[in-house]
């Protein structure tokens, strides 16, 4: 796996939530009530024992604190930074019931896990070799969490990733004021240090290695496919320079140095979290006028309100109830978007046509699904582009398991981590009992 370049546009960003100093962490940790059967734990998709790891910060057992986190979620470092804690653990802190500021669980989790990385603490060893082998398709959080758990259970693992780097959206998509690409790569290396996880980057499944070949070589297959490219508005001029997918733009900013010197006005089309990220990132890169264009009202947008509030404080503009209907172009470049206002029933209102000028249009209206990659495999069910799995993460085809964005349509890193770990246990049961073939 390769490292990321040092020359990346994202390096201009500071942390939106800065790291705690030891003094700050201790003050906050001592506020925690150490609830029993705590609501914060129930709100965590990976069920991290939050009161316990916080108590261990208070007693200065930070090594143990980080272990409590990693025991449940091996991606605890990145999740500490990227989790929408306001709607998960922090949102369910009992202090909210009291009208007292909730415990800053994400920042405390970052404190312990950063310390573990700084001190290079490692906790886990590979289990005794079982002779079984598992292929993981895709190198994002779901596959990484699955692979680590599978190694602890003693199975050989091979990750197939089409990009040159691992980490999935943690590396290529996380807002840089939460985590930068190099930190994600560090996490991947730390995780891989358990040993025995073979990494094949630059290999596309099924184009270069097909499933028949994987089935021949491995006892089970985990699908951590993630999502595909941005959905593009089907309007005339879509192929011209000046318009691109938001996810593609973010990936470029995180991995390369972008040339944005001629960009003054940016339109971000969409109302989800990718749209808000793109808005905040464009502002952070110094682009002077960034406007979100959303067809609904502000309160109906699907992006997190706390993220949008932050975007507004950073200077974001918005055009609500506004639908793009065509691109404006000049000299082979996109120069703006023709729009029409929409009513509350999302119907276009006649006579409201107008043009929003732009040097750059970012489309954040969703990412394509990748279930079609496996649709030819007998037994595997898909629905709305998602791979269907049971409670254990198993697909309808024996030996095939799946997790992360390809089964949920695009949720959080923490969901992918939970899916990966869950599937690892199911894979373990499968290869150790039901045969997993002796091939």
């Amino acid at each position, binding site marked *: 796996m390769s490292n990321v370049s040092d020359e990346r546009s994202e390096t201009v960003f500071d942390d939106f939530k800065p790291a705690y100093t*030891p*003094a700050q962490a*201790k003050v906050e940790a001592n506020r925690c009530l*150490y609830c*029993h059967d705590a609501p914060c734990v129930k709100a965590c998709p990976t069920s991290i024992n939050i009161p*316990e790891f916080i*108590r*261990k910060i208070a*007693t*200065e*057992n930070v*090594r*143990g604190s980080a*272990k409590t986190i990693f025991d449940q979620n091996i991606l605890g470092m990145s999740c500490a930074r990227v989790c929408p804690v306001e709607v998960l653990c922090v949102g369910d802190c009992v202090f909210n019931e009291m009208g007292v500021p909730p415990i800053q669980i994400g920042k405390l989790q970052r404190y312990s896990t950063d310390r573990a990385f700084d001190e290079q603490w490692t906790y886990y060893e590979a289990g005794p070799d079982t002779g079984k082998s598992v292929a993981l398709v895709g190198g994002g959080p779901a596959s990484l969490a699955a692979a680590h758990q599978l190694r602890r259970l003693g199975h050989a693992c091979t990750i197939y990733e089409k990009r040159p780097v691992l980490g999935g959206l943690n590396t290529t998509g996380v807002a840089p004021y939460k985590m930068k690409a190099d930190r994600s790569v560090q996490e991947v290396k730390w995780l891989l240090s358990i040993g025995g996880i073979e990494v094949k980057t630059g290999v596309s499944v099924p184009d270069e290695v097909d499933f028949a070949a994987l089935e021949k070589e491995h006892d089970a297959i985990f699908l951590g496919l993630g999502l595909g490219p941005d959905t593009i508005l089907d309007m005339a001029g879509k192929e011209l320079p000046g318009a691109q997918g938001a996810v593609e733009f973010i990936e470029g900013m995180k991995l390369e140095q972008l040339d944005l010197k001629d960009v003054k006005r940016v339109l971000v089309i969409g109302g989800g979290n990718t749209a808000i990220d793109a808005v905040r990132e464009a502002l952070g890169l110094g682009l002077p006028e960034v406007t979100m264009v959303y067809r609904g009202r502000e309160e109906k947008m699907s992006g997190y309100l706390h993220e949008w509030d932050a975007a507004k404080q950073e200077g974001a503009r918005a055009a609500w109830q506004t639908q793009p209907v065509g691109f404006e172009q000049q000299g082979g470049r996109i120069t703006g978007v023709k729009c029409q206002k929409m009513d509350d029933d999302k119907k276009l209102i006649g006579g409201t046509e107008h043009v929003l000028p732009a040097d750059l249009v970012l489309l954040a209206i969703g990412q394509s699904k990748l279930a079609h990659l496996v649709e030819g495999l007998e037994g595997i069910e898909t629905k709305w582009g998602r791979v269907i799995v049971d409670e254990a993460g198993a697909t309808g085809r024996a030996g095939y398991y799946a997790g992360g964005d390809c089964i949920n349509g695009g949720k959080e890193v923490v969901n992918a981590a939970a899916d990966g770990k869950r599937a690892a246990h199911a894979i373990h049961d499968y290869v150790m009992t039901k045969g997993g073939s002796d091939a």
Partner: protein
Amino acid sequence: MPDLTSNTAGIISPNPFWLASAPPANSGGQIMRAFDAGWGGAVWKTLGQPIQNVSSRFGAVRWRGHNGMGFNNIELITDRPLETNFREIAEVKKKYPKHAVIVSLMVETKEEWKDIIKRSVDTGADGLELNFGCPHGMCERGMGSAVGQEPKVNEEITSWAKEYSSIPVLVKLTPNVGDIVPHGLAAQAGGADGVSLINTIKSIIGVDIDNLVPEPRVDGKSTNGGYCGAAVRPIALHMCAALARDPRFNVPISGIGGVTNWRDAVEFILLGSSSVQVCTEVMLRGYRIVEDMIEGLETYMREKRFEKLDDMVGKAVPAYSEWGDLDMNYETVAKIDGDKCIGCQLCLVACHDGAHQCIHPAEDAKVRIPVVDESECVGCNLCQIVCPVPDCISMVEVDNGYVPASWNEAVAGTAKLRPKKGAH
């Protein structure tokens, strides 16, 4: 991986963390859950003639937003039938053969001691703890601290127990005495295999000022109870160390009193405890606290390169000295790190009103970082104690050119003391 195995007077447990004889160790079901959580041993809630308790039973010191800095109780020994307790002790021991189960006992007559000890030993328990410490309810009946406060009685009953017991006998001492040492020596003289201390301190936890009744309130009255919790730790540490450093005292100690986490436990072990017993923090937070205690102790031992628990027992005892042997020429002064200072000026007011008036406002009234007059600073630590910012105020050693000299040496005329500071 360091070895946490604890050996207290022949009572072996996988780690030094025991539940103290108290409500968390009231029944087999509780103790088995505690062992599952990681506790290494448990001292069963004291057995004797079953009693009846009152309501309410507990009180707490609430201080600056903390609910249980100190705690007290007026609960007595077990109120459950003896047969039930003995049956459960045997069950626990059978299911958890590697954990330590110690039976706490408190009865009156020699015959009663003989009988209850035999029945206790028959359960397969690992040891006995004689409760000579309870300072409320039982002492008025001639038991508990009434025994622990009389060395002769203590020694005699201990010798009965030793006569009848085939398993190790610990004597649990009361802190409600002027000097703990004669009481520890009395237990030793009676043949005790070890002592555990401290039991609770006679106390009134507070007063209900609306109803004009002390707490905990039992209708219109209250009574003195036993004080415990984090606040009593310094008293317990002193009594533990006082015995540990006495050359005449040479049986193991099980430390008790205000242990809330691994750090507290390490303090007891360094001052001579082979095991530590916990009650109040479990009552306030549950058995689950032991996970951090085990991890924290392990990490500490690894960092300090102690391979086994015995290697660290008592390691701070030699440094517990008489005042007269302290080096009077050792000098420290306070240094304030201006980069870390947040300008609360708690150090300034503390020094001005509570110490030696050597911390002053900066000359520029807009600067809130105080200034230490090192020529007047006596190195008392008060400013460092009140400072809310870790490592902002440090007490820095001053090289004053004087060779070490104690008060005892100065009185004997064999050493020269540096001039006094701050004594105008």
